[in-house]
């Protein structure tokens, strides 16, 4: 991967004051909005359970539901492709685009295509992939990486966006007007005009899907700007890249999802655009529909009985917005398109824990539990973090840390040893009197900014024995 471990990346991110300010503002705003609309429903907990159950049912019989999905899609005129990994998926999509003899495609925002780095693969094949979601457009024009699942340009503010538009739009299409201001309406207008040209010209559209319904063979995309619907209906050919965990058993399962997702993600009661497509229809919409079903590590996650719950994720990003660690470090520190709490558990599960960044991610949390509390499909992220820490600790053994833990375990497994250790601490306490400790060798990180409390001259255990006896 070549990405730095989380603590180093985080240190760098903490130094970016503007980014921290933007993140704090954005996450707190959306956090409050989410809490408001969730608070309006008295059956929220029941909805969460319904959402989690639908996903669990799909995951428990994944092969069956995927076959049903394929059958129904095919019957409706779509072509289904299976991709084991990112490379295979990229190869399939590139070949499909090339067959259309075009060198550009328009894209609906999709985490899955970002995960497999489809844009980069298309670029190498000489094909331009244009992102049409406003925030994705900002990220793409800025030559930047997305830093949030839902609001990829969350780390940017308006004046930065204005500069990017003025500088970059003209290089790849319709230029931004010279008198562009940082008024949001003006910025959106510039993006709209720039994109419209591309929508009308493109012969191929590429999307992901939020849900794939097995019993009807339908794909569903939920979005806010309407650009998705343009991509899904205007081009002659539509290619949808869908993670295999996106499948839902039946059309009925959509009901809880369409309540859980917008409230959790944008804090809206309903999302502005919900598009569904089921194969092809003569003379209406794309005449050729391809669906690429992607594994890329998912069956591996499925094999783990506790880890499996991470595949319920509907990418709402609520967990990012409440995470105090994400709030201070931003998305880039996670070294993946999946940042925040869900990224901290999903990436090491999908990619394994060999790289520096993947083995540091399970520790990028205080286990405060805020993510679990908001997750609309009840993914117990703290539980997964602890489990993954176990996997990392086992892989690193023997280490200085495992030796320290064993030593601590040896002391703590016996009250006499604990008592002896306490006496040692007591003598430090006696030596220091009530002076505060400012530096302790080996505890540099702690003492760099925090005063360490002085140990007392007598432990509670000693006091009790003295006052009350040892029974």
């Amino acid at each position, binding site marked *: 991967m070549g990405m730095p471990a*989380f*603590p180093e990346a*985080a*240190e760098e991110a*903490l130094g970016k004051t503007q980014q921290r300010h933007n993140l704090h503002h954005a996450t707190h705003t959306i956090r409050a909005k989410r809490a408001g609309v969730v608070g309006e429903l008295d059956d929220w907990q029941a909805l969460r359970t319904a959402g989690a159950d639908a996903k669990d049912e799909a995951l428990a019989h994944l092969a069956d539901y995927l076959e049903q999905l394929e059958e129904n899609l095919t019957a409706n005129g779509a072509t289904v492709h299976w991709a084991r990994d990112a490379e295979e998926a990229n190869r399939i999509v590139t070949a499909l685009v090339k067959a259309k003899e075009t060198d550009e495609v328009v894209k609906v925002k999709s985490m899955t295509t970002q995960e497999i780095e489809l844009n980069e693969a298309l670029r190498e094949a000489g094909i331009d992939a244009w992102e049409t979601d406003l925030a994705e457009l900002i990220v793409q024009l800025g030559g930047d990486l997305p830093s949030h699942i839902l609001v990829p340009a969350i780390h940017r503010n308006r004046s930065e966006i204005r500069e990017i538009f003025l500088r970059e739009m003209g290089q790849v299409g319709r230029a931004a007007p010279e008198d562009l201001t940082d008024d949001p309406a003006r910025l959106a207008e510039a993006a709209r005009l720039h994109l419209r040209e591309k929508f009308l010209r493109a012969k191929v559209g590429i999307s992901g899907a939020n849900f794939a319904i097995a019993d009807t063979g339908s794909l569903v995309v939920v979005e806010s700007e309407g650009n998705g619907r343009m991509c899904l209906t205007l081009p002659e050919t539509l290619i949808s890249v869908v993670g295999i965990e996106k499948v839902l058993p039946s059309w009925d399962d959509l009901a809880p999802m369409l309540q859980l997702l917008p409230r959790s993600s944008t804090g809206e009661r309903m999302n502005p655009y919900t598009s569904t497509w089921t194969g092809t229809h003569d003379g209406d919409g794309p005449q050729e529909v391809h669906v690429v079903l992607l594994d890329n590590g998912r069956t591996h996650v499925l094999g783990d009985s506790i880890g499996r719950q991470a595949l319920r994720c509907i990418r709402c990003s609520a967990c990012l917005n409440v995470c*105090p*660690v994400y709030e*201070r470090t931003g998305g880039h520190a996670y070294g993946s398109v999946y940042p925040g709490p869900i990224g901290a558990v999903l990436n090491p599960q999908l990619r394994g824990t060999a790289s520096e960044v993947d083995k540091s991610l*399970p*520790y*990028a*949390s*205080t*286990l*405060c*539990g*805020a993510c*679990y*509390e908001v997750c609309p499909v009840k993914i117990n992220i703290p*539980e997964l973090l*602890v489990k*993954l*820490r*176990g*996997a*990392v*600790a086992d892989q690193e053994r023997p280490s200085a*840390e495992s030796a320290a*833990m*064993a030593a*601590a*375990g040896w002391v*703590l*497994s*016996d*009250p006499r040893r*604990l008592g002896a*250790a306490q006496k040692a*601490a007591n003598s430090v306490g006696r030596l220091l009197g009530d002076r*505060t400790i400012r530096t302790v060798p080996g*505890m540099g*990180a*702690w003492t*760099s*900014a*925090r*005063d*360490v*409390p002085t*140990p*007392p001259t*007598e*432990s*509670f*255990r000693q*006091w*009790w024995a003295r006052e*009350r006896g*040892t*029974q």
Partner: protein
Amino acid sequence: MSTAAETTATPAPRAAGPKVALFATCFNDTMWPETLKATVRLLERLGCEVEFPMEQTCCGQMQTNTGYGKDAAPLVRRFVDVFDGYDAVVAPSGSCVGSVREQHATIAREVGDDALLDRVEETAPRTYELSEFLVDMLGVTDVGAYFPHRVTYHPTCHSLRMLHVGDKPLSLLRAVKGIDLVELPGAEECCGFGGTFAMKNADVSIAMGADKARQITSTDAEVVVMSDNSCLAHVGGLLSRHRSGVRRLHLAEILASTEEEQL
């Protein structure tokens, strides 16, 4: 044991109250004996018979949360051995009680010890964080305390989201005579301690703690109170480094303070 839910203004000392085992937790035992002495004083004032089983050590939370769950298994075994047979086990620590109630079963499962799992399922539900025990089991919110100072309260994450203690600590504090209890802005946000997180991700931990310390000083409180000494030590260490003058106290210490025996 008594589960009577009467809420008296000044509870009369009970003649033969419930027998309670104090789970000191290794960190409090070693570093914060004052909190434990206050807990004993308070529980005895409320008529409980308090025992301190000398064979107890630690709940294993540090090992579990750092990824050494298997190494915590002997500590879980010791915990059930020591606390088996008590009506109630009480600890002035949300996070250690959280570890007992939420993680001991996971560890027993992880090491595949069914007998241990059965015993954990017996002891874990009888283990209470102090405010839960006072409000739910003893049925008191006014414990007869007196503390005439400006105080702000931070609900630590494990109390809040693992144990769901809700506003029990606050209702206990509100009933304290003379107290000026002020709301802490952003109270429910984590202070950044997180056990080994404070070492492994020191920069982020400090950034979070510094924000918490700022919120605390913004209230002009003289005292910040929590029900976990680990979080208190983290935030207190930052407040002290910045010479804020805000004093750190555990909930038990405030509740134990009376007009006769002022803190």
